[in-house]
């Protein structure tokens, strides 16, 4: 057999075998609920081939907002294939979340993004879930606003002051 033919057969074998191997190792992930707030206790059911409860794995819920990512591991509940995770989103705003099944982790199990009530957490300083999210005055808006209001009359009076200043004596 020509060397080139061997290589071609090997590539063909891989192309055929890879999807079959992948299909043989998949698991489904079911969630007992979708996020209910920044504090979200959830049970994750992991079934091999969608049928057989999978024990002795560690599924993880991954939540992402921009550069902020948090991972929450599921703990066995005692029920076959069922794991409990207590997800605490660092703050409100739009969050994407997915589950890694801990079986193959080949593909994340994805769900619709949610927008949660509360302040959006800064990537540099995540707001703890227990923090007051009732809101205060937003200084990022207030300070420039007050400065602009103070500057407006100054801008108005400035030309008049110039006009009223006495002409220098020649």
């Amino acid at each position: 057999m020509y060397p080139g033919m061997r290589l071609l057969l090997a590539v063909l074998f891989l192309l055929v075998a890879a999807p079959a191997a992948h299909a043989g190792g998949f698991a489904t992930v079911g969630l007992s609920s979708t996020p209910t707030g920044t504090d979200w206790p959830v049970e994750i059911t992991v079934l091999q081939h969608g049928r057989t409860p999978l024990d002795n794995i560690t599924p993880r819920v991954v939540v992402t907002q921009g550069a902020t990512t948090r991972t929450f591991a599921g703990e066995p509940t005692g029920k076959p294939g069922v794991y409990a995770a207590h997800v605490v989103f660092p703050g409100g705003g739009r969050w994407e979340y997915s589950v890694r099944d801990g079986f193959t982790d080949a593909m994340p199990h994805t769900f619709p993004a949610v927008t949660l009530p509360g302040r959006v957490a800064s990537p540099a300083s995540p707001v703890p879930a227990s923090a007051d999210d009732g809101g205060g005055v937003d200084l990022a808006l207030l300070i420039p606003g007050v400065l602009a209001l103070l500057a407006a009359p100054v801008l108005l009076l400035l030309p008049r002051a110039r006009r009223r200043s006495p002409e220098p004596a020649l």
Partner: protein
Amino acid sequence: MRPAAAALAAVGAALVIAALATAGGGGGDEPGQSAGRVQVEGTTGEPPRGLAVFAAQGCGSCHSFKPANAQGILAPDLTLSLAGRSEEYIRTSIVAPSAEVAPNYGDMMPPDYAQRIAPADLDALVAFLAEGSRR
């Protein structure tokens, strides 16, 4: 009043009003967000019951379906395969998946969803799939 001064005053007033409006209401909330309520992307108001059933049954692990942001690749993309199909067809596809197997896919779907899913939840799931595949 000079235009520049008037514009500056207007911008300042708007910023102060916006800052005060956010006080007590979750200042960093995203636009359009209702205070105290979780909003699921792609839906308005309460999330559809069928979406919760879809998530609970792990449908998205195998199937893609845009309204659920599901990206499974092992089974047909429901956004496409259910487009134009009747609710009866969708119901049969869930409870008797071997009745018609999509071309290029194996007969892999568990056949016991009629037992796994409560009748009311099945109705909700069928409605969610029908609605989502019509978009």
